[in-house]
């Protein structure tokens, strides 16, 4: 026994190199906020916890659960149908619709929620439109939990669409043919074969949807629905009880980790599926004219609901409010937003690259497994990360102020909390996975063998990074940067908690106008966010096509 322990120790000492150390340091750096929150769970909640647990928590759980389930069902409906129809059939407008289906992701859910509130309100766009046709209705009340679920679904279905699309395109041709040869029609083959085998892909997409749902603050707040995340905000800003907020955050964290475990269980099952290389591209079918237009309608509906209608509403408001805009102020906010997003995206990509390189040159299995935790940040709601960054940051700040006072007898302000450092750090924690995934996908192209070839030719990690990995990863690096950039531009709850007093982002501006019942004025900043989201999506789409 002792001998085995000594051998294990010896091997660890042999294989531990500076890359193992780097991997561990990066992971610790990224993992601090959730670890902090987890340990806070044992410190006990604040004073109002008793009341919250008794009166509010059941409602939080119930509402969050309802929205998560409703959104899962609806996004599967929208996402799977549009993915299948657009990969299997030829119909009018198929090509533009294929990427238009992704565009709802360019609009943050809370902005879609504002737009729909405007469409269905008293004197809103719908009533105005119907009046043209001499019809009149009272308002349709969407500002409730059902409306919220619907709005979140039309805004989040692309996660399911994207996940299924790749699967349908590469894995279903053989299945469909096998089914046809056995004398079954296409509908039978789709429901009996393709859908069950696509389940891991669908579940993967739905898990992302649920994470976004649990992350949402802006839409739920605006629609007056109490969820876990609004509860965190209420404890933090309303009751001024960070301890209670942390407690709620920790509970949410446990739910999220259970979801991740389910997802990984699902992934393991994926191994049964034919590998993507052996699958042939799905062949397109050209149905009869009537059916073609029916399919068009089916595919265009989610695009209209998730993108066109909300954008139209925003544009309408923007035109109404054109003269009332303070351009100087808007310019300042745009500039600040872009700068913060660019810096955060740059830091995120660097951190992801460092993790990737350290991962390859580290030779210890357990270090590799531990460092996988570094990319879990994306699963954790922004509000939770914000709380996890703010509280330890505050401790460090207080300590710094004390130390400074004792050593130099001078007063300094807060160094971390309330500055852009904490904000950028939190963005990196939350979006590291967004940067890491395209890079590691790119790295599979680079192939393990190329790095090993460089190594066997006598070159170390940095030389290899510079001469081999960076040149080959360039498109992936650009893609990673753009994805993080968009996500930071859209981010609301984390920014709301951590933003410095004098910094304003477009997302915050839109949120504040909406909360002040000045929804029309929220249109311009909202449209700017949409624009910064749409342009890169189009660009990325081009990039993917060229490959």
């Amino acid at each position, binding site marked *: 026994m002792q001998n085995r322990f000594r*051998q294990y120790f*010896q*091997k660890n*000492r*042999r*294989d531990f190199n500076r890359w193992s150390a780097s991997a561990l340091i990066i992971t610790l750096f990224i993992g601090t906020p959730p670890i902090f929150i987890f340990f806070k769970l044992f410190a006990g909640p604040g004073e109002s916890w008793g009341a919250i647990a008794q009166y509010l928590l059941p409602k939080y759980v119930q509402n969050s659960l309802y929205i998560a389930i409703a959104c899962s069902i609806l996004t599967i409906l929208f996402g799977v149908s549009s993915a299948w129809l657009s990969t299997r059939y030829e119909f009018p407008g198929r090509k533009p619709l294929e990427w238009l289906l992704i565009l709802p992701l360019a609009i943050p859910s809370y902005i879609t929620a504002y737009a729909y509130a405007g469409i269905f309100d008293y004197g809103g766009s719908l009533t105005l439109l119907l009046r043209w046709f001499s019809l009149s209705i009272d308002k349709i009340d969407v500002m409730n939990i059902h409306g919220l679920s619907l709005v979140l679904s039309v805004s989040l279905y692309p996660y399911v669409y994207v996940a299924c699309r790749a699967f349908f395109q590469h894995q279903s041709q053989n299945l469909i043919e096998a089914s046809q040869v056995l004398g079954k029609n296409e509908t039978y083959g789709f429901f009996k074969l393709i859908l069950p085998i696509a389940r891991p892909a669908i579940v993967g997409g739905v898990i992302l949807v649920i994470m976004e749902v649990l992350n949402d603050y802006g839409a739920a707040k605006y629609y007056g629905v109490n969820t876990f995340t609004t509860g965190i905000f209420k404890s933090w800003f309303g009751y001024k009880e960070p301890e209670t907020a942390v407690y709620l955050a920790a509970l949410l964290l446990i739910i999220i980790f259970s979801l991740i475990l389910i997802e990984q269980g699902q992934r393991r099952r994926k191994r049964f599926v034919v590998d993507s290389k052996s699958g042939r591209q799905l062949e397109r079918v050209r149905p009869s004219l009537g059916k073609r237009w029916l399919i068009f309608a089916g595919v265009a509906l989610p695009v209209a609901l998730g993108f066109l209608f909300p954008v139209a509403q925003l544009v309408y408001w923007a035109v109404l409010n054109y003269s009332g805009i303070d351009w100087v102020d808007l310019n300042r906010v745009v500039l600040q937003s872009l700068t913060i997003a660019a810096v955060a995206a740059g830091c995120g990509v660097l951190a992801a690259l460092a993790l990737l390189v350290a991962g390859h040159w580290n*030779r210890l299995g357990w270090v590799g497994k531990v460092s996988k935790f570094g990319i879990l940040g994306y699963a954790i709601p922004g509000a939770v990360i914000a709380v996890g960054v703010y509280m330890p940051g505050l401790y460090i700040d207080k300590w710094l102020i004390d130390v400074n006072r004792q050593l130099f007898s001078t007063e300094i302000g807060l160094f971390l909390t309330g500055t852009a450092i904490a904000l950028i750090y939190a963005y990196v924690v939350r979006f590291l996975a967004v940067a890491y995934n395209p890079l590691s996908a790119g790295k599979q192209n680079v*192939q393990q*063998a*190329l790095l*090993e*070839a*460089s*190594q*066997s*030719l*006598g*070159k*170390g990690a940095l030389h290899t990074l510079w*001469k*081999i990995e960076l*040149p*080959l990863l360039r498109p992936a690096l650009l893609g990673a940067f753009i994805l993080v950039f968009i996500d930071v531009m859209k981010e609301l709850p984390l920014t709301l908690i951590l933003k410095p007093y004098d910094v304003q982002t477009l997302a915050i501006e839109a949120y504040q106008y909406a909360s002040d019942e000045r929804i029309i004025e929220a249109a311009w900043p909202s449209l700017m966010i949409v624009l910064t989201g749409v342009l890169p999506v189009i660009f990325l789409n081009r990039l993917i096509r060229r490959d």
Partner: protein
Amino acid sequence: MLLTINNLSKHYDRGKVKALDDVSLQLEAGKAYSILGESGSGKTTLARLIAGLESPDRGKIYLNDDLISSESYHLPAEKRSIGFVFQHYALFPHLNVTKNIEYGISNLSNKTAVVNEMLHLVDLEGYGNRYPHELSGGQQQRVALARALAPKPRLILLDEPFSNLDSSLRIDLRTEIFDILQQTGVCSVFITHNAEDAMAIADEVIMLKDGRLLQQASPETLYQNPATPYVAQLLDTLVEMPMALLEQFGYAPTSTNHYFLRSHHFTYNQPSDYSATASVTNTTFMGQYYHTEVTVGDQVVSIHCSEKPTENHLEVGWRESDLLIF
């Protein structure tokens, strides 16, 4: 000795899979070796351990009497000067042939000279500006070889170098690569699952099965005196000769060992040491010969016939010197 390996073991999955189990061997400078084994035999693991791409759980590796791997020490791959030619070549796709070859050369002053020497060696002069995707499979293979040879390694490992090539090209390239390596005089180790390749290119064959070393010997010795029936049947189709069958042929076994014959060592209707009358049950045309199943007594034996047997009965025989006894 150029390379000495003592009691090398490598486990995966917390010791559940023994990829390599207590392997010891020695390689001499200037010789060509091949590591032969089926997939899962541990041949790739052995090569990766020698190259330093992985580290062993037990055992030691010495290069020129310097320790390079042990339980407590690992010289990184980039410091071993051991060349490696990867199965799918692993040419850097964004660098042209010249840049690929000069990648590993550390002496800056004679870079161009070495590249030219290498291009000449692998017969690819004039291809320096091509990119890997503009080359055929065989050309890529030769660039990969030139790239590995350029830094003048002490030892070169080639992982399944012919597995991506079709059979006509494979024999040409095999001869060509053998000649190139002979010219440089570098000690080379081929990793392969193909017995014919292994015997054609190597001075010595290292046979692995389930992570254990079965035999290290020259191709001739391996063929004539295989250490186990497994080694023998990997090189040729083997027919087991149980006692009852041997007696049918009039041979009286002297021990209780296992006796085998190779299918092509059976003769028919010719004088031989031992023979028996057999009835033909099945004939399959295989191109160079007819694979013929015959029954001797109640035992079925596969033999190779140069012509299709016309009669139902054959006088099948064999020579005592061809008998393999384990």
